[in-house]
């Protein structure tokens, strides 16, 4: 068990290092810098432009800049964001906290709803969730964005309680049908794996509710594992969901960093999403074992 855990942790470490390298290099090379545009228009030139390049670490060679960025992260500083002026790591941490709240709330609501349907209806499953499971999550976000516009709720990003609830509702709508499928499959596997135990329970006169409880307990780790993977799935898609919902979380921050050519913020944000995604996947694989 410990060797497998060590192997899984090393895979995560290698994956994160690769993600950090690709993110930093692609951000530096691909996004360029707003300074280039400003200098071309004559607003900033000469000594002023050079000073700004040094301030944002854009004068360093790529590999040295990458190592400096990693050293800064280890000290708790990623460097200043060109768009917001504040340290990128602090911005990303605040964005992550803002995103985790509605995603966790929506995920828990979806899990509770799926569990309730499975406990009461399985194996007779309603047909509607089966179809809804194929709908991409951002369809709900688009519908919510359109409804918000129609209701005059405005497009200014805010983390108001209404927006948090709408975000959580979108997450719950996207995850609940998927969790129902996963739970149904887990119960089917649990039924196959516990045939002897169920037969013995029936012979001893245990009621069907007790036998159903046995199946649900056996299926719980698989369902939780799938929930964790879906959690990472939603976090990854926050880059599309949050701009649609005008919600100022990590996804919006990442989208802004990419659109506004902020290499340090983009690389740091991407690393944060990757870290949570890997952690959720690791926890999911440990639960399944």
């Amino acid at each position: 068990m410990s060797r497998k855990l060590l192997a899984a942790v090393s895979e995560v470490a290698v994956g994160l290092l690769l993600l950090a390298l690709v993110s930093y290099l692609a951000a530096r090379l691909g996004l360029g810098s707003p300074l280039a545009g400003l200098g071309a228009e004559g607003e900033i030139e000469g000594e002023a432009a050079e000073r700004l390049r040094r301030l944002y670490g854009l004068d360093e060679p790529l590999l040295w800049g990458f190592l400096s960025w990693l050293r800064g992260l280890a000290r708790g500083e990623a460097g200043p964001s060109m768009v917001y002026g504040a340290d990128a790591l602090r911005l990303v941490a605040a964005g992550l906290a803002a995103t985790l709240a509605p995603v966790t709330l929506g995920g828990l609501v979806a899990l509770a709803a799926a569990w309730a349907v499975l406990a009461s209806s399985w194996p007779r499953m309603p047909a509607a969730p089966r179809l809804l499971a194929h709908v991409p999550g951002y369809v709900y976000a688009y519908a919510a964005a359109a409804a918000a516009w129609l209701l005059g709720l405005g497009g200014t990003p805010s983390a108001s309680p209404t927006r948090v609830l709408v975000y959580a509702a979108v997450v719950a709508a996207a995850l609940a049908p998927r969790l129902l499928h996963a739970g149904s499959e887990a119960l089917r596997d649990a039924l196959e794996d516990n045939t002897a135990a169920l037969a013995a329970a029936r012979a001893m006169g245990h009621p069907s509710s007790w036998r159903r409880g046995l199946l649900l307990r056996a299926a719980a780790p698989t369902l939780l594992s799938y929930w964790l993977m879906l959690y990472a799935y939603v976090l990854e898609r926050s880059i599309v969901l949050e701009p649609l919902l005008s919600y100022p979380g990590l996804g919006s921050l990442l989208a802004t960093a990419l659109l506004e050519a902020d290499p340090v913020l983009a690389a740091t944000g991407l690393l944060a999403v990757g870290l949570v995604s890997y952690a959720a996947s690791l926890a999911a694989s440990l639960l399944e074992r």
Partner: protein
Amino acid sequence: MKPGMRRRSGMLLVLLPAALIAAALAAPGPRCPVASPLAPPSLRHPLGGDPLGRDAACILALGALRSIVVAAAALASSLAVLASAAALAATGRERLVAHLAGALAGLPRLPLLGLLALYTKPGPLLLGLLAGLLASPGAARSLASAAAREARSLYVEAALAAGASEYWIVARHVLPALRGQLAAHAGIAAAAAVYMEAGLAMIGLLDPSKPSLGTTLMLLLETPGALLTPAGLLQAATALTLIAGIGAAVYASLRPRGRLAEKHLLAWLLA
């Protein structure tokens, strides 16, 4: 050949050339008829005019073609990656492939694709290739173990004893035996690529001058009052249905049947 495999092979033979034709048609750029911005649906313009004053049906058709090209390119790149992973695992490198796939499986695909798209400024072919590459590591691990199991089967050992080379074994026995799983997992990657392309276009991370279903949705949302018009609502509903429909069609045409289908569905629902 089993009927399911015949259907999946037929789907691949249809999808890939269709996508190349679609890419050729879309290459010179949109030549859609002009219409009044957000004009109501009519016989001449069945979906009305889009917010920029173009025939919406034409723009959505070009966007759908783009999605098909992305799906086909992703299918091709995913098949290449997964077949390579299976081949390496069948020739004794299963642990290497499993660890590498494990390291790459947790990458946040959508934001990473957005970043790479800004760097490479891709057309639909390159975007699909990148999306297929990013969507494949998760399936590579399970395919690697299946390939290694296949390579240890008795008939393979008999072939080796008769003097067959490892590469002949892979090409003649292992990959054909895994053909269904390869197609199914590559189908998931292709469907995921359709969703990723539309999602990134919707928030403006792809070139907005190229017709895309996601770009149409972005235009409708950002044009004040567009979604209050019959044309705007119809175009939004059509675009969302096309995105979901193309992705689901690609997945459904390549998925396995029977008991394996339910297991496979769980992987699809994470796409």
